[in-house]
């Protein structure tokens, strides 16, 4: 059934292309992890000759787990079953829940650590003075812990994505522990490592993580079962309508009603609203790179960051442009809305977001004038070049977006896919900058990029005309695609 919904969904072509890329990445990571797994023991022995490699690894287990939870939260897509059709079929509730949970156990992310754990464990059996049984106990424990992370991630996503605030205490405690660790007050990873060492000495203790897995599984099961009603999702929703009017948009004349519309769209629906929070959050991205001297020499990388920070809303929102309106696209198409106006208003909205984000990045001037300049140029490039590109790409969108769903849980949203699509948007200007900067100079590179941006702006009316034409041509396919509710 799942296969069918995949092959029959509107964007098979795009999905397959991306799937291939994903499989390639998966293979790449598998091989990388395998090599790491095999090489880990000799490497550690060489680097720290007087320490036991196993104990060293044990000390980093906790750190790895936190990291793993983090990337799983961002990347792993949970198996989602559309429960509505199953509800009135004679399928036991528990069976369906079990299916979903067990399916998640086979996720690629669960196999990845195995590539390290098993070769490393085997190495330890042969090289170190531990017994075979002890290491089998260790390996079992590690595998069980991986599954723990899997189910923990599952429960976090299911239970808390609707209510991210409930997670704050958990995040705070993790941060607190990390801080304690950092300032060497209380080294939790050290104690966790000690526990793992103890486990190696007493292999029967591997039962503890296994019990933990079962407990988490049960928790998930109960949680999912309680949500297995149609109205579970409906209950809280009927909140009072927010009747803000965004009257100030009136200034924009013919485009005003559309802009107003889009603002309401963003403001009142979970999915697009999250893109705003994401944009603000990711403004901090620069903090990771600017303070470090490593990148100072390679300014092209700053272009990448600049495009990313000023354009994050553009990427997240623009990429799905017509899909946002999917649920009422036939109305948009048959109402008195010229295609060009519709698109222009989207372009305008996105351009504003770029300008606002660009203004918000100005404090980075603290790290140097060049950064401010690069960010401004990146913003210009985003408005001039990337906006039309994204809108053009949008015409190939045939996938419906359910506005109400939170982005983390559903396939249509953030996930590896989305980032892959946006790479060219950021890499191309980076390459242009790098080439110009390398062969001519910093100023010329800046002028080059801004030139492209201004050129894009000057050509905007013509480009919009052209893109509107493409949208008109693809209209029927889009309407048809948006009708498919499936994934």
């Amino acid at each position, binding site marked *: 059934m799942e296969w069918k919904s995949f092959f029959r969904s509107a964007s098979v072509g795009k999905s397959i292309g991306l799937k291939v890329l994903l499989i390639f990445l998966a293979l790449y990571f598998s091989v990388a992890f395998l090599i790491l797994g095999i090489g880990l023991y000799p490497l550690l022995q060489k680097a720290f000759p007087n320490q036991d490699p196993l104990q060293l690894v044990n000390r980093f287990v906790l750190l790895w787990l936190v990291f793993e939870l983090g990337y799983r939260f961002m990347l792993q897509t949970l198996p989602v079953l559309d429960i509505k059709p199953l509800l009135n079929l004679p399928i036991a509730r528990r069976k369906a829940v079990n299916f979903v949970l067990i399916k998640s156990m086979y996720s690629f992310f669960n196999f990845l650590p195995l590539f390290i754990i098993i070769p490393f464990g085997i190495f330890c059996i042969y090289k170190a003075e531990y017994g075979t049984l002890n290491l089998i106990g260790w390996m079992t424990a590690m595998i069980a812990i991986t599954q723990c992370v899997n189910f923990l991630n599952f429960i976090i996503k299911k239970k808390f994505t609707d209510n991210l605030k409930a997670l704050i205490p958990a995040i705070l405690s993790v941060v607190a522990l990390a801080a304690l660790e950092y300032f060497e007050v209380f080294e939790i990873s050290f104690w966790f490592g000690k526990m793992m060492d103890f486990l190696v000495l007493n292999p029967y203790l591997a039962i503890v993580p296994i019990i933990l897995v079962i407990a988490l599984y049960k928790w998930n099961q109960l949680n999912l079962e309680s949500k297995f009603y149609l109205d579970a999702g409906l209950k809280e*929703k*009927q909140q*009072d*309508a927010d*009747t803000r009017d965004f009257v100030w948009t009136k200034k924009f004349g013919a485009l*005003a*009603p559309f802009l*107003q*519309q889009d603002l*309401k*769209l963003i403001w*009142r*629906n979970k999915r697009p609203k999250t893109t705003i929070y994401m944009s603000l959050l990711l403004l901090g991205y620069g903090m990771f790179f600017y303070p470090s001297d490593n990148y100072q020499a390679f300014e092209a990388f700053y272009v990448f960051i600049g495009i990313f920070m000023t354009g994050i809303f553009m990427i997240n929102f623009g990429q799905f442009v017509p899909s946002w309106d999917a*649920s*009422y*696209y*036939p*109305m948009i*198409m*048959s*109402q*008195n*809305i*010229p*295609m060009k106006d519709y698109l222009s208003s989207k372009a305008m909205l996105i351009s504003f977001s770029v300008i606002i984000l660009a203004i918000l990045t100005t404090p980075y001037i603290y790290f140097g004038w060049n950064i401010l300049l690069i960010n401004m140029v990146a913003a210009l490039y985003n408005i001039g070049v990337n906006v039309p590109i994204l809108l053009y790409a949008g015409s190939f969108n045939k996938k419906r977006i359910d*506005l*109400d769903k939170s982005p983390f849980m559903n396939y249509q949203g953030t996930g590896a896919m989305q980032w892959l699509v946006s790479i060219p948007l950021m890499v191309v200007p980076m390459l242009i900058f790098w080439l110009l900067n390398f062969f001519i100079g910093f100023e010329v590179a800046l002028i080059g990029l801004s030139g492209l941006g201004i050129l894009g702006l000057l050509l905007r009316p013509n480009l919009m005309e052209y893109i509107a034409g493409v949208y008109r041509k693809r*209209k*029927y396919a889009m*309407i*048809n695609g948006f*009708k498919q509710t499936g994934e």
Partner: protein
Amino acid sequence: MITATNLSKIYGGTKVLNIDHLDIPAGQSFGLVGNNGAGKTTFFSLLLDLIQPTTGNIFNHEITVSQSEEWKPFTASFIDESFLIGYLTPEEYFYFVGELRGANKADIDDFLANFEDFFHGEIIGRRKYLRDLSKGNQKKVGIVAALIGNPKVVILDEPFANLDPTTQIRLKKIIKELTENRETTVLISSHDLIHVTEVCERIVVLDKGEPVKDIKTSEATLSELESYFSGEVGVTQAEEL
């Protein structure tokens, strides 16, 4: 004035609509009846250029709908919920449609005042989003929105379905008033023979995409239609035997 010539639509080898020639003069109230899959919604979707005709063309006041967007300003429609914007309140939706059709807020408020009866106090001022309304109430909003801004052509797909009896009667009154001055062409499809015969002056029966009957409504029309559809049942039953 709506003209369809040589119009057909083929889905995967099956002809779902095949109309040689159909003229709907301006100001007519036109009813389309037929069983499920007869091609009613397909015809309306073609008329609104939501799907592409396999052959032929539809002209709406001399404008080829698949080639120009010029018909949009004077054509209004409500086909299904995909014509509603779920995250707006009904008022906002009306204002939005109004703005698209060149009517300002005050115009819309005046306009809506006429429909107080029809809404039965369940639509306006309830501070609810459209997506939270019941199906019937959503339909009411869609139908009324299709009447905003004096369109010359109004297209309603199954307007009576999902409505309660009181509202059905009110809707019939509204449609009759609309066509009274003979300036607005109204196109309606329905499964309910009684309702269509009451509001439409002309009724076309579609069967498997082919127009099989074209009737000018009179006293006898209802019984004629009823005997046609029950006759069809008789034929298929005979075939099965």
